[in-house]
């Protein structure tokens, strides 16, 4: 795999796990991402949360906090333990970026399904901030409030009621009719998958590299 040859990892070239990098991520793209990593980390080996403050465009984004958080979430980094990492290195950075790689033509059913689940898991982790595997009403409310927080005319009550309404809707899809004293604990990952049925997330949740030519090419 050519990618491992070119990875200019500061710790020295490391073999990358085949799950993360299909052959279509070229060495050139990795080189570009590495340059971006170095720019963000100011030439250090790792990035911390504060380094994301240097991206002016990101301030626009209402869920900025959740996105940055996602980079340090150990579940996204495919690490065994749970919780948040303090800092990430280039390989971790690439791991997060791999959730946004585009679909390939030659994927079979099983690969496509796994691909889709990976991306949805990333989004699930964004909602589920306490890492308990369920999106509770409070967590749902948090996300809606953040997304709607820019509107000064919107009272907290309205945002809350919108969130509650959406949660009820979700409950009805997942569990069906509930009795008056039944408590809906939260959206599990399986329920989450149900709600995204029909939406082709795998064709939309990606970031495509522009086609760049190299002047000479070694393979």
């Amino acid at each position, binding site marked *: 795999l050519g990618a491992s040859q070119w990875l200019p990892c500061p710790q020295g070239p490391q073999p990358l796990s085949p799950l993360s990098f299909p052959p279509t991520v070229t060495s050139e793209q990795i080189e570009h991402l590495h340059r971006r990593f170095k720019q963000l980390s100011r030439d250090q080996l790792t990035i911390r949360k504060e380094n994301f403050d240097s*991206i002016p465009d*990101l301030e626009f984004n209402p869920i900025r906090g959740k996105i940055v958080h996602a980079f340090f979430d150990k579940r996204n980094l495919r690490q065994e333990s749970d919780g948040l990492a303090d800092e990430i290195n280039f390989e971790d950075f690439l791991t997060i970026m791999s959730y946004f790689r585009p679909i390939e033509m030659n994927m079979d059913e099983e690969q496509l399904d796994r691909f889709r689940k990976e991306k949805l898991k990333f989004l699930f982790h964004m909602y589920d901030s306490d890492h308990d595997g369920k999106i509770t009403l409070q967590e749902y409310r948090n996300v809606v409030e953040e997304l*709607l927080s*820019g509107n000064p005319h919107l009272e907290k009550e309205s945002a809350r009621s919108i969130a509650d309404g959406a949660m009820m809707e979700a409950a009805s899809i997942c569990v069906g009719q509930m009795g008056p004293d039944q408590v809906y604990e939260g959206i599990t990952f399986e329920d989450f998958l149900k709600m995204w049925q029909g939406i082709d997330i795998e064709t939309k949740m990606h970031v495509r590299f*522009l086609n760049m*030519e190299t002047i000479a090419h070694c393979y």
Partner: protein
Amino acid sequence: MFLLLPFDSLVVNLLGISITVLFTLLLVFIIVPAIFGVSFGIRKVYMKTLLKIFQWATLRIERGAKEKNHPLYKPYVNGIIAKEPTSLEEEIKEIRRSGSGKALDTPEFELSDIFYFCRKGIETIMDDEVTKRFSAEELESWNLLSRTNYNFQYISLRLTVLWGLGVLIRYCFLLPLRIALAFTGISLLVTGTTVVGYLPNGRCKEFLSQHVHLMCYRICVRALTAIITYHDRENRPRNGGICVANHTSPIDVIILASDGYYAMVGQIHGGLMGVIQRAMVKACPHVWFERSEVKDRHLVAKRLTEHVQDKSKLPILIFPEGTCINNTSVMMFKKGSFEIGATVYPVAIKYDPQFGDAFWNSSKYGMVTYLLRMMTSWAIVCSVWYLPPMTRQPEEDAVQFANRVKSAIARQGGLVDLLWDGGLKREKVKDTFKEEQQKLYSKMIVGNHEDRSRS
């Protein structure tokens, strides 16, 4: 010992003769034409020769890289990722439609709404519009300056020899020549303006001061070996107007002022710069502010207004971006100069980075380092376009007027018109911008909610 003596005096004689010859050549070919504003065309020939050499060097690198199987990295200009051109509304509508089939006019929040913001966030983390603008534009062919080459390794003996020769010429021949010229130019400026300052006010004084300024700027232009092409000179700024231009480096001032008469605006500095400024203001009414006065916007506006209303005074030269940008784009113009109500004469300046990159990255290099880099490049090549004058229309405010001028400049110079504030280089985004995206989304959800509850 006796043998050394005649040898010694021989060396001294030779040195003396060569210095005299050098200075005579300097005088005849550079200073005298500068005073009279004529040109022998030496610089154009120089530029053509250099171009041929650069082409050869680039071909040589490509060939050498192919032979040795090195991939060459062609630097990107437009960013590395393809950003989707669809808007917030379109995307969310599309996702909702394909999902639960609900349209946007239902007031509920959908789980999938988070997706758009998530993707946008990742896109900006991967590749940012703004910080790219601030490092020097990356070149497509190599210009024999190792500071601009990412692919420079030992490719061939001939290339390395050529590069070494280039270094020798630039540092040992061109650099001393340019420093001598710069020195001459600046001292002539200071002494000339001081002398003219003693004359009584009147037409004679104005005439002399304008020509002293012009002469010295022309010498400085030659000190940098700047090869400038002026377009549309009939649109040059007139008295009582304001000239605005995009800003890439402090050299912009010299480039514009060597083709017209301007009154400068700026902050008084200490040191050599301060000496020059104080001498200049004796001969001609430039507008210099003390550091404390610069913060007071009303005072600044008042002085500028007084200046433009006096029709006998020269047009003011202002750079509204407020900082140096790397000449691939034009950033937001500060509205102060557009509030005054005078006619605005826009000027677009575009540098050709092939011969020497004129961008001053003030967070990376100090002024002296920057000037040395300029003087050891091959040349500074640029084009100046004088655009037709613009005035503020009654229905637009200062910000809209500023944006209109900015678009005209960007279009003419082939630069990208960015809405961003050049001051972002150092500060963080103002809070007002932060809220726009959130407002838009929440308006979409809540606006409909209110309509619903009303009906």
